[in-house]
């Protein structure tokens, strides 16, 4: 019987393709070639972005690294490029980040938890969701104008006008949608079985969320928050509208102080005619990148700790 012979080719089905007759050519070589070509195309797509980034960073480092001395970090802006430093705007940026995180994190995560875990699915919730997603795409200068009207003018008595607090609150508004959306996505990824198990054992919804769902979602929430804060750190337009200064020769020591921020200082240096100021701008960009990387590093560290713990 031919069918019992494992090496035998299957019989030609009536009217079908006969592989043995050459109707189907495996042609593995060419098919693997297509595989390779596709792999190379995706590789190029990935690396174009990376190469551009690498060139930018390399160019900036070549320009700015020689200028990056301790002096640069501790000096105030100056008309003499070789004496100018980034101290006041660096401290201003750190203050801004602190204030922004202080307001945006609890409010954003709280809103995300409510929408994902507590809100019932009705037209009101859906309207909220759509609006929050839309807010994430609003240009930052609009937030600047909102902040100017609300925090600087309307609430000027509390924020002392064009202060760090006004700037931080405006940036908090700017990144809230990003934090809310990423919080919701992280909560969505937590399996429902966990919630059901919690409630089956008699926990309230609050107990389930707080002790079981939220810890699982923390890594994702942290990632979203850091991405949002990284956006905030590079913003210039809303801060200029709010009234950030360009020349500040003191370190802000309270949230009501007037301030400058690194992107503003860097922008000012790039637009100056003297080449030396452009070098300062490159050095400033390096400092900004380092702050950004430190932030991301902290986030990854925290995330990894949570992930290991939850295993």
């Amino acid at each position, binding site marked *: 019987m031919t069918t019992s012979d494992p090496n035998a080719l299957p019989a030609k089905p009536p009217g079908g393709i006969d592989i043995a007759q050459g109707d189907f050519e495996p042609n593995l070589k060419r098919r693997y070639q297509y595989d390779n070509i596709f792999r190379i195309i995706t590789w190029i797509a990935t690396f174009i972005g990376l190469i551009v980034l690498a060139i930018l960073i390399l160019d900036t480092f070549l320009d700015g690294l020689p200028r990056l001395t301790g002096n640069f970090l501790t000096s105030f802006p100056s*008309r003499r490029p070789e004496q100018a430093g980034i101290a006041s705007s660096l401290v201003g940026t750190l203050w801004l980040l602190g204030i922004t995180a202080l307001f945006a994190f609890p409010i954003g995560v709280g809103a995300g938890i409510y929408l994902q875990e507590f809100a019932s699915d009705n037209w009101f919730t859906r309207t909220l969701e759509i609006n929050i997603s839309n807010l994430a795409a609003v240009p930052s200068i609009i937030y600047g104008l909102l902040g100017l009207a609300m925090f600087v003018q309307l609430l000027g008595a509390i924020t002392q006008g064009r202060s760090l607090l006004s700037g931080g609150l405006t940036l908090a508004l700017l990144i809230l949608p990003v934090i809310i959306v990423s919080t919701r996505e992280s909560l969505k990824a937590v399996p429902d079985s966990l919630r059901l198990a919690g409630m089956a054992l008699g926990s309230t919804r609050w107990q389930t969320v707080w*002790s079981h769902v939220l*810890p699982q979602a923390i890594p994702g929430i942290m990632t979203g928050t850091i991405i949002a804060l990284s956006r905030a750190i590079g913003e210039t337009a809303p801060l*200029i509208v709010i*009234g950030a200064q360009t020349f500040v020769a003191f370190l802000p020591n309270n949230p009501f102080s*007037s301030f400058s921020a690194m992107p503003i200082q860097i922008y000012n240096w790039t637009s100056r005619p*003297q080449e030396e100021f452009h070098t300062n701008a490159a050095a400033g960009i390096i400092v900004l990148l380092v702050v950004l990387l430190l932030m991301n590093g902290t986030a990854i560290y925290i995330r990894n700790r949570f992930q290991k713990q939850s295993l």
Partner: protein
Amino acid sequence: MAFKFWNKRNVAFAALTAVTLTIAACGGTTTTEADPEAEVGAEGEDTEMAEGGADVSGDVLLDGSSTVFPIAEAMAEEFMAATPGTNVTVGTSGSGGGFEKFCAGETDISNASRPIEEDEIANCEANGIEFVELAVATDALTVVVNPENDWAQCMTIEELQTMWAPESQGTVTNWNQVNPEYPDQELLLYGPGTDSGTFDYFTETVNGDGGASRGDYTASEDDNQLVQGVEGDPGALAYFGFAYYIENQDQLTSLEIDGGEGCVAPSQEAVLAGEYTPFSRPLFMYVKVSAMEEKPQVAAFVDFVLDPANRTFVDETGYVSLNDDQYAAEQAKVQ
């Protein structure tokens, strides 16, 4: 177990502690908000009178044009060095943005690269802000071409108008249309964007109407990009502030300007002598009168800016300081 610290309860506790501490810190600074100024004031009183500085302390708030910023920055830096206890801050929200804040009473001094406009004066009056206009320096608006351009050395205002008039849009595209003696070479124009005070001054002077310009030129708010544009093209022409020419002399050629009394090249000497016309433009600081009366540090700062002994601070920035007569005239306005 290695990461036991990060259990839920500890995280919650840590977060709460952090929030509480921060709020406490904020609260703490609120109540002591007046302290830094008080300390600074005391320091100011203790310090011997520094050269050029009076025995004053406190804030001086400047905002406005980014063109005037280098001068304001230089003056602020030197004034603070000479007068410990003072805090001068300078913003760069542009001439228009600066006047908006100034007329709302938020700043003491507004930097401007153009005179204040009618509606801005009305805005200031409506808010009861009285001001003095002070010229603090002069900028030589410079017209530059590519070094390969060997045909144009000196241009009249009429020729520039032929290039830049609104009617020229799309029609004047070759150097030989500007002057028949010029070669057949494509004309590529670069200039500041419409928000710029330089743009206002140039269009006012050349086209007779501030803001009237052809629109088909490469515009950038960053003058360094204009420099690069002209560097890269033999048929290019651009206008911007003198400092950007001085810093790029090797890559650019400046044109002499014939304002009716012969060709004059842009230079500090020509501007000081009043010969580089009509492209010598004054740069302004608008000072709130009540600020000068109520805040001695503002009056001291204005005196410092208008002191001819400090003219080197202006010259270092690439602008041209006033001549002695102009200094005397500006000082008279604030006496």
